[in-house]
């Protein structure tokens, strides 16, 4: 069964929201609600409620990254210092803890930030190729709803989009 992509553009978020709500309520054969993507010029917090519980897992990367950075920092530094018998600092132990904690702290943050960003790229699927249907309008002021569905479901979907005053509906046959 061939898949079709349909992009509907809306002038404002309220209209898009009602369209999504209807799509969610309607049980359309050949269309999985998870295949719906909202594209917007700004972030809408309300989207969570409308789209249902879609996961965001960046925080786990953060946790892992920060812990890894901290541990790496401490053991890298202390491990290096443990060989410092010829680089003694008078009045200080060979592995002094306070300075190492300072550096561990920095490494903790460094690891956290780097891995968070890595996590962001992974979770958000970036960098990515442009999706088949994209309108530059969504980076300006319009809200887009992109759905992927069986060809059979396409007319139904288009109907719903149109009902909610979609400015423009684009369709493309998927591969």
């Amino acid at each position: 069964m061939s898949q079709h992509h349909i992009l509907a553009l809306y002038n404002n978020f309220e209209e898009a929201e009602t369209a999504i709500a209807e799509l969610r309520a309607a049980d359309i054969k050949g269309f999985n609600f998870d295949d719906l993507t909202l594209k917007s010029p700004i972030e809408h917090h309300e989207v969570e409620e409308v789209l249902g519980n879609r996961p965001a897992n960046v925080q786990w990367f953060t946790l892992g990254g920060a812990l890894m950075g901290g541990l790496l920092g401490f053991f890298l530094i202390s491990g290096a210092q443990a060989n410092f018998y010829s680089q003694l600092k008078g009045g200080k132990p060979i592995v002094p803890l306070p300075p190492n904690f300072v550096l561990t702290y920095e490494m903790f943050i460094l690891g956290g930030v780097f891995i968070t960003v890595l996590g962001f790229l992974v979770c958000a699927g970036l960098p990515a190729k442009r999706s088949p249907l994209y309108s530059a309008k969504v980076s300006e002021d319009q809200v887009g709803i992109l759905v992927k569905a069986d060809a059979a479901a396409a007319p139904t979907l288009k109907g719903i989009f149109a009902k909610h005053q979609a400015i423009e509906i684009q369709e493309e046959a998927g591969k």
Partner: protein
Amino acid sequence: MGKDIREDISWAKINEDVLRSLESPRRLYWVILLVAMLAFSVGIGCEVYQYNVGMGVANLDNPHVWGLYIATFIFWIGMSHSGTLLSAILHLMHADWRKPIYRFAEAMTTFSLMTAGLFVMVHLGRLWQFYYSLPYPNERALWPNFQSPLLWDAMAIFTYLSSSVIFLFIGMIPDLAICRDHLHPGWRKKLYTLLALGWEGTDRQWRNFRITYLTVACFLIPLAVSVHSIVASDFAMSQQPGWHVTSFPPYFVAGALYSGCAAIVTLFIILRYVFKFEEYMTLPILKKTVRLTFAIAMVWTYLNAVEFAAVWYSHDQAAKDVLIQKATGPYAPFWWMMIFCGSVVPLTLAFKRFQTNIPVLFAVSLLLNLGMWLERWMIVAPTFSHGYYPWTWDHNQWPSLIQWGMVFGSFGWFALLFMVFCKVFPSVSMYEVKEMVYHRRLASESQAAAKGAH
């Protein structure tokens, strides 16, 4: 008093206005760029000379081994803190007025850190061996000394700089996508296409974007505090009178935020004019920034007083001598100038009529930064001239033109980077301005609805 950003401004116009800043600035832009390049070449020339001949050309001596390079290093590190303040702290506090101006503040953070890094380099006696201070694996198992606050500095600055660059970049991705979508084809479009990473504004992207942005912002705040605390540790961890002060870390952080805010006011005024951002960088925003600056100025003044009082009532005679020396010795004019610029001049900001008076604010912000630069110099130099060991007291040291040249050049380098950035990338965050006006409209509508219901 000027108007704030219109709530009904069309989003397309926001795009159009901001994108215009990438095309045609006022003529002053080119003047600034030219002056910056000239200043930077002066700095380069001084460094080439110093590199070849030796640090002696800076007219430093034993024991007065640190001079303007370190003072200016702290100054630029301090400058960097305002970006984080605006982008991270105010972000967490949901202060939406930050949105039009945080981008350039964040850029300021990045570039002033890069400038600060240069000062560490030019300060080194053997610049060509600077990599000895990096922890790189080598066959001799030689590592830098992890106990040195200078190494903490290096580590903290590296972390801060890379995190700031990342933060700046991440926050700019949606705007880069706008640039990609709306600019004419050309090398810049290719650049934006590459940098936008294929951003489409999907719900998944936005969702993760929000968490990432928030997380990095959360990291940046303690990081920024730690960076300047560590710079303060360069001094506070030492044993020298005038440096060995417990209150130095918060004092440095306050000073950093202070000079950063003052610099934001300066750059705000310049950018507003040069890129015709009157509609976005509005006077109410300026007013808020100015009030923030005033508040921090008072915090700094207080911490200054705390430091003096702590020295004065301690039994540390050497530290007391240094303080007296600052107030009465050869550095006295600069020290009093610092007090004047840092604590007296900001009092003008308490007056409403000055809070939006652009010429006054421009002058005041420059004076504040002068005061803050002097503060750093007054931290570094007098301790050397009047340390523990009376025999080596040296009140005659005066920085050579080479040192001044490099300080001067650093402003050129900073301005160059900053101005080029503002021309190449949108210096006002378009998507956040949209968010701002969107949420304001929602708020005022719901307010109107509530009124209607009554």
